[in-house]
């Protein structure tokens, strides 16, 4: 019976089966214009890819692409004196000042330089010899400051007897609030994700800056905690 049913189905549905055959058969000769050269494989366009990855917040893919070349003009310098420091801070006229404090890989605070910046493209390095001149400003609760990991900054400064106040903004805290991603909170990662910039040792990334040429950038006294540091530190 079964075979008879097949035969009858085939006999009685020829047109339907033929149509099904036409629908199911993929054409291999449609008249489309096409040149092989136009589909030659090419390397991706990194700028376009990066823009999409940034828009979609594909952080791991962005990391693979690496940061863009940073060719912006910068004005970086080492503060030569207490007077120069006070004059430079006065120029800020109350604008929030970013305070950068380095940390060794071991988690110990290795503070011999404090970085300051209050406008894009410009920064100053203050070495330990001028910490005393910087202390009143650091301890002034009315002088608004920004840091990444304020708690660590306060601890590091406390080791120098500085009771810092006025840290109104913590970039690390904001990063966590935005992404809830502990791996994305470090300053290096924030710079990469949000600004497409690579933070690195000052001297290698700024070959013509005063930081590079000035011997005063060299540490005069190496704090013990810094001596053993290996990476991620601004320690030379």
């Amino acid at each position, binding site marked *: 019976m079964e075979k008879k049913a097949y035969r009858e189905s085939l006999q009685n549905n020829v047109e339907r089966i033929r149509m099904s055959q036409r629908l199911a058969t993929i054409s291999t000769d449609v008249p489309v214009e096409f040149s092989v050269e136009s*589909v030659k494989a090419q390397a991706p366009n990194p700028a376009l890819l990066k823009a*999409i990855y940034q828009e979609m917040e594909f952080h791991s893919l962005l990391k693979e692409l690496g940061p863009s070349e940073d060719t912006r003009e910068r004005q970086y310098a080492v503060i030569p004196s207490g007077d120069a420091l006070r004059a430079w801070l006065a120029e800020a006229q109350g604008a929030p000042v970013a305070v950068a404090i380095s940390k060794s890989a071991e988690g110990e605070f290795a503070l011999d330089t404090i970085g300051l910046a209050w406008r894009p493209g410009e920064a100053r390095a203050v070495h330990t010899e001028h910490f005393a001149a910087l202390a009143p400003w650091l301890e002034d609760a009315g002088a608004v400051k920004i840091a990444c990991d304020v708690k660590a900054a306060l601890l590091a400064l406390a080791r120098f007897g500085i009771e810092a106040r006025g840290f109104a903004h913590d970039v690390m805290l904001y990063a966590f609030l935005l992404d809830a991603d502990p791996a994305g909170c470090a300053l290096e990662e924030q710079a990469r994700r949000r600004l497409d910039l690579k933070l690195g040792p000052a001297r290698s990334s700024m070959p013509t800056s005063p930081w590079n040429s000035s011997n005063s950038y060299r540490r005069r006294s190496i704090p013990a905690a810094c001596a053993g540091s290996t990476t991620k530190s601004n320690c030379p």
Partner: protein
Amino acid sequence: MRAHARVLRPCAPPPASPPRRSISSTTCLRKLSKQHAPAYVAAIFESAEPTHRVLEFPEYKANRAETPPDLLEQIPFVRRILEAMRIPILEYPGFEADDVIGTLARRAEALGMDVVVVSSDKDMLQLVNDHVAMLNPAKDDEWYDAEKVKSFMGVRPDQVADLLALKGDAVDNIPGAPGIGDKGAKDLIERFGSLDAALERAAESGEEGLPREPAK
């Protein structure tokens, strides 16, 4: 040295929120480009205009649910990713992507290339031969050569369309022959070799049913 060509369909994203779909399509394309390093590559998009199948049979694919809006939203994104990856997008008004892929695969084959069709559509298995394979990224990158097609579909690649025509295809709403089903369709194709031969023999056969001669 043989060149490799690759004909991509945009990878089928898993059901998820838009960002996950996006990253799925992106990682799929990156993986394909990196792992297989094709010499030639193109992504074929479906035509928005009616194709010859719809003109012949308006119910063709008419059973399908509306494309989910969040998937539609991803299409411009997939186009941008393809553009950034410099993978050309080919679309020809009035031609179904399947037919364009079939045509390009045969043309590339004629130029001496080995072709990989990247798709999760079993219809495409009919294109497989010694120089055309199919890769299904939705199934752990399962690779289909002629042998695999035979074990998966129960028939040779060149018999796949006849098998679908006989048993029907609920996905594309192809009606097929009533009362034959998957097993009957495979039996008939195996016994007669093709749909044409089965129809011819059915017309000739007597009351006792279809003869049992093996396919030549």
